[in-house]
């Protein structure tokens, strides 16, 4: 659901410099590029705050919070391939039984917090239980509906426990789910699965200095200003398959202006040589970045990312006619949208699937093959078959920031060529999401972007196309409802064998695209600058943000 940037750069150069990394799906230790131990890494961020409370966090497994906290599992990333789930605090990615409804994990031996006390299974249970309390809500909640009794559980602060999480001993934890879930190993990588020792905590301030299970701990936090991380002396490198933990200190500075961040990294002076940006390169600075080879080679571009797409409201005539929707698939000038987004290297590749590259199970196919500029003749012929030879008049809902507006205008001019008259309805972000997710959709088309929260095709398909996700602020903005697809979604999410699950999701992808409830536009890219003394800095295809777990400084 994040959008932005479009930059394309010498991704090949970046990929080549970290090519040693991507082949090690099964290696025991983290991949090393040119990074050396020591030094202070600076992260420059436009975010006004940082949230380190695991219960309230919505962060990805490759984010800063996972330098301080470890979960049961984590993601092994590479610059070019889809990520794989690997064990983090656990010895494996989970042993499944009971038809996919029971998952058992064993913690690695000898794990300790930063204060030397041991990490036990009961701490993982407590960390999960406190995420159910209303006072700590706001984080990723995928585990809440899957655990038995999760829907009614209100947290541990009134003395109640969640019985579906069992800890028969200090190193074993068993989860009882109310239905089979093939995604549970991915869900176990979320921040809520980080251990929190059970004691009287000041829950309002736990996030200021959470108990560190990762390679770093909080040295000081001035909320809104700076977060300083120092090493956790009790983190055992041998137990950690992904984190390289090269820098001695990491300083995260918040609330900076994105243009100034990027200007600082372009200038690359003094301490900024040790810095990385977590703000995309703004469109206005792209010519400066790409035009200077010494700057362009410090740009990390994600090969893929969020899906930009046009949601078609299938309940509004004439869009309830499949032929009309298929006409739209052919009529849209995707190349114009790509140009509005900044071009192929900047904006992203043209999209034709629902599952995005970087998600395991992605397969390239095109149900509606056409020129990049669209197939106006075919679109017109489909329209006249549908009885709309004289054309159509549609509204397009879009956000009113400059990038969304240019993309919407590109869609509009492309459709005009096919005789479809489009009226734009730009709105600010709050109103836009309220309207797009409303139970009664008052729009024909909406320009949206979507990024799953974890690398499973469930995230590409279920929130956008399951009939339970229509209205109430949810994201099935097409109002698409197909019982056969719902059944396939349920089957795929329950399937615990990854290969089978991926095949099912691929099937769902094709089945949905045959109904044309959306027009996929682009796999949107992100690009981030680093200082010249930083090494091993790349943005994988998923998630399209820099992998903070492996960044270091060059010697």
């Amino acid at each position, binding site marked *: 659901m994040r959008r932005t940037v479009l930059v394309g750069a010498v991704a090949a150069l970046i990929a080549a410099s970290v090519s040693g990394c991507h082949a090690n799906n099964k290696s025991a230790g983290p991949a090393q590029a040119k990074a050396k131990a020591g030094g202070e890494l600076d992260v420059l961020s436009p975010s006004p705050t940082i*949230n380190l409370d695991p219960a309230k966090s919505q962060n990805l497994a490759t984010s800063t919070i996972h330098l301080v906290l470890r979960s049961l599992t984590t993601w092994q990333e590479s610059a070019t391939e889809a990520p794989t789930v690997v064990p983090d605090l656990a010895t494996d990615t989970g042993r499944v039984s009971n038809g996919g409804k029971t998952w058992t994990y064993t913690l690695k031996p000898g794990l300790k917090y930063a204060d030397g006390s041991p990490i036990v299974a009961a701490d993982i249970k407590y960390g999960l239980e406190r995420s159910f309390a209303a*006072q700590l809500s*706001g984080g990723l*909640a995928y585990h809440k509906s899957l655990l038995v009794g999760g*829907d009614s559980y209100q947290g541990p602060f009134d003395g109640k426990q969640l019985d579906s999480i069992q800890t028969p001993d200090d190193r074993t934890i068993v989860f009882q789910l109310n239905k089979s879930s093939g995604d549970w190993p991915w869900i176990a990588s979320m921040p809520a699965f980080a251990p929190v020792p059970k004691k009287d905590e000041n829950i309002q301030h736990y996030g200021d200095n959470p108990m560190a299970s990762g390679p770093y701990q909080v040295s000081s936090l001035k909320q*809104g200003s700076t977060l300083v991380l120092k090493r956790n002396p009790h983190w055992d490198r041998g137990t950690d398959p992904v984190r390289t933990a090269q820098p001695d200190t990491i300083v995260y500075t918040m609330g*900076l202006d994105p243009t100034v961040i990027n200007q600082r990294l372009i200038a690359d002076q003094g301490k900024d040589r040790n810095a990385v940006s977590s703000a995309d390169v703004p469109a206005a600075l792209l010519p400066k970045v790409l035009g200077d080879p010494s700057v362009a080679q410090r740009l990390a571009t994600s090969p893929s990312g969020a899906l930009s797409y046009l949601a078609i409201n299938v309940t509004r005539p004439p869009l309830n006619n499949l032929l009309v929707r298929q006409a739209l698939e052919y009529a849209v000038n995707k190349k114009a949208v790509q140009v509005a987004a900044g071009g192929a290297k900047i904006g992203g590749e043209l999209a034709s699937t629902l599952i995005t590259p970087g998600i395991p199970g992605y397969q390239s196919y095109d149900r509606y093959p056409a020129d990049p500029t669209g197939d106006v003749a075919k679109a017109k012929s489909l329209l006249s078959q549908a009885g709309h030879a004289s054309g159509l008049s549609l509204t397009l809902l879009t956000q009113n920031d400059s990038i969304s507006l240019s993309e919407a205008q590109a869609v509009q001019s492309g459709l005009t060529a096919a005789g479809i008259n489009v009226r734009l309805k730009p709105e600010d972000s709050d109103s836009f999401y309220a309207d797009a997710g409303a139970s009664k959709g008052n729009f024909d088309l909406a320009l949206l972007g979507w990024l799953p929260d974890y690398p499973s095709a469930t995230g590409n398909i279920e929130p956008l196309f399951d009939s339970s996700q229509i209205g109430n602020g949810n994201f099935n903005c097409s109002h698409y409802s197909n019982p056969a697809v719902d059944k396939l979604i349920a089957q795929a999410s329950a399937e615990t064998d990854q290969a089978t699950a991926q095949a099912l999701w691929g099937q769902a992808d094709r089945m949905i695209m045959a109904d044309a409830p959306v027009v996929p536009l682009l796999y949107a890219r992100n690009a981030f600058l680093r200082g010249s003394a930083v090494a091993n800095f790349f943005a994988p295809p998923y998630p399209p943000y820099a992998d903070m777990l492996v960044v270091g400084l060059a010697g």
Partner: protein
Amino acid sequence: MTGYLLRRIGGVLVVMLLVTAVAYLVFFLLPSDPARLSCGKPCTPDRLAQVRALLGYNHSVPVQYLDYLRGIVLGRSYGSGAASLHCPAPCFGYSFPQGRPVTALIADRFPVTLSIAVGAALLWLVTGVLAGLVCALYRDSWLDRLVTVGALGGVSAPTFLVGLVGILVFGFRFNMLPVNGYVAFTDDPAQWAFHLILPWCTLAFVFAAIYARLTRTQVLEVLSEDYIAMARAKGLSRRRVFVHHALRAGLTPVLTLFALDLGGLLGGAVITEKVFGMQGLGALLIDAVASSDLPVVVGCTVFAGLLIVLANLAVDLLYGYLDPRVTS
């Protein structure tokens, strides 16, 4: 004078009540639902209801408003039992995403805004008034024309442009000044001032222009008054007439405007803070608007309103002292 003071303070209380009421309407008029922001992802209707109950959004509008007012006076708690969230008095609201009372956020940020506002204010007052005086004294000279044109530039230039150009020129090109960040006075006074030079100059450039033009006009107007001609005719020196008679009358309106401008700026110099990456009240408000953190929006608005109302009170009292006719 006492009666005047009491009437004014009564007026302040009434206005503040209206400000809180209007600000509080924000919760009900905007499309975003603050409970949804803290509901989690995915958000189920049950969880949403749970969060709404915790934050008190499940009560009727008048009840919510009265709870809010009571919180300002007595403090408030959200939830019950061992894990209730405390918001001590005066409680302007509770930011759930940030996990802190709005009052604490404001208290944290206020020194930053204070540093920017007071420093810039003194700078623009001195330079603006001096420039205006010089122009008034040497009217229609090349100096006067130069300053007037410069003032036109200052009045027309948008703050963010001046700020970004300043950063580009003095920060990146000549590497003379830091480009962003705030250092607390208690940590390092020298660095504190060093980091504030560009923000001060940016704000002062815009305001000084206004004050120069205003001072020039006011002083010229006073100098053309009869009693000034009378004083000169009586034989008082030019300097005595100017400093002792004209200045006091001419500057009084400038000073009252100064008090109002400073009061407004203390509520947050939004653009300056954002451009220079300083976490003041303006940045807090803008970030809260962007992330739909409504309690912070309401709290900041009420606080900024309070500052402006107090500045107006100060001006009224100042006038009451300067011009006895007003208080009778």
